[in-house]
């Protein structure tokens, strides 16, 4: 019985590990007494093999596509915002606390809104220099065919992204600045941007990633990444202001609500870091192709 369980546990190991050691370990299991300890040891070994799968001889790097990571993060943010936080009674019930806090709460709320607003605007503008270079490359004859073709693809992608970026931006502005939707309140208005700015950043990312196809556009790709880094910084600072606002009403907030806000903040900040790092790294890689070997 234990031997069968131990053999079955082998299927929990990564494929590269099984290809390399599977037969040997199966032979060991078959030729030695199998106990509960053996099974637990194999389960622990499987977890270790997954954690250190790069150490398995001949293992390929496990890579999750960036698009899939960003899609999952974006979907998580949207779900946490709506129905997650917007439906939470705390958003409405805490309104009285902040009314008592007076100008402090209003100032902190305004700071968060402004920082998120800046992050959104910077994100959209981050691709302006790149688009400018691409438009110039399409018109001129200085660049080679690869650069011209890549520039055309970047501009076409930009046109395709205008509507989604516009919709996300409009939703953010409506919720944060135009008191649209229910029931947002001071905290909701303050933190709405934190759920939408990362989406805007992720939506503009295809432009530098597409531009990375042409080494001559490498400096613009890296430049976009650097500008996106300032947007990510504004986003993180804005979450700091949201945390301050939440602290003012912490006594009346439920732990689940605080946990949801904290998770939203973490995902938001993490997503902006992933986007920024991807653009900067891609820019560096492309520029490295231009350097003499």
């Amino acid at each position, binding site marked *: 019985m234990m031997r069968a369980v*131990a053999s079955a546990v082998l299927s929990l190991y990564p494929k590269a*590990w099984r290809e390399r*050691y599977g*037969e*040997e*370990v199966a*032979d*060991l*299991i078959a*030729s*030695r007494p199998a106990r509960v*300890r*053996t099974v637990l*040891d*194999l*389960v*622990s*070994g*499987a977890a*270790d*093999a997954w954690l*250190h799968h790069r*150490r*398995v*001889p001949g293992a390929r790097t496990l890579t999750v596509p960036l698009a899939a990571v960003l899609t999952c993060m974006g979907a998580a943010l949207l779900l946490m915002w709506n129905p997650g936080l917007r439906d939470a009674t705390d958003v409405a019930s805490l309104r009285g606390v902040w009314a008592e806090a007076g100008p402090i709460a209003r100032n902190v709320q305004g700071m968060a809104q402004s920082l998120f607003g800046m992050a959104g605007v910077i994100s959209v503008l981050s691709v302006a220099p790149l688009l400018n270079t691409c438009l110039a490359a399409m018109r001129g004859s200085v660049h080679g065919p690869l650069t011209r073709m890549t520039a055309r693809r970047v501009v076409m992608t930009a046109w395709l992204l205008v509507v989604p970026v516009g919709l996300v931006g409009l939703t953010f502005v409506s919720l944060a600045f135009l008191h649209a939707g229910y029931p947002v309140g001071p905290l909701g208005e303050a933190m709405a941007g934190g759920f939408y700015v990362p989406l805007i950043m992720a939506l503009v990312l295809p432009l530098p990633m597409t531009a990375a196809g042409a080494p001559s556009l490498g400096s613009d790709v890296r430049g976009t990444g650097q500008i996106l880094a300032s947007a990510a910084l504004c986003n993180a600072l804005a979450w700091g202001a949201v945390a301050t606002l939440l602290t003012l009403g912490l006594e009346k907030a439920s732990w689940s609500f605080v946990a949801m806000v904290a998770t939203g903040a973490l995902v938001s900040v993490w997503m902006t870091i992933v986007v920024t790092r991807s653009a900067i790294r891609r820019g560096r890689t492309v520029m490295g192709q231009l350097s003499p070997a």
Partner: protein
Amino acid sequence: MARRPKELGRFTDVALLVLISLAEGQKHGYRMINDIEEFSGTSLEPGTLYGALMRLEERGWIEPVESAERRKPYRITESGRSALGEQLATLRRIEQAGARRAGAAWGLA
């Protein structure tokens, strides 16, 4: 400065036992487990043994030997032998320091 296998983590001790076992000649997993149990009294399970083998192979301290048999033997490499020598020298220093200090504490020195 002795080369310590810091990244071997919880496999450090097992890796040392494997290197000692292979130092006298190539062995496959089954023989390694029996040999280690015989000279150290440590009964290894397959998951732990192969976690250590994976790390040792990655470091180039052991290597598989081509074999048509299902049980693949492993042998220690030159760098593995040198790493083993350094680890044993470190253990000797620890043992000497321990014996000296324990002796002093018991009033035997």
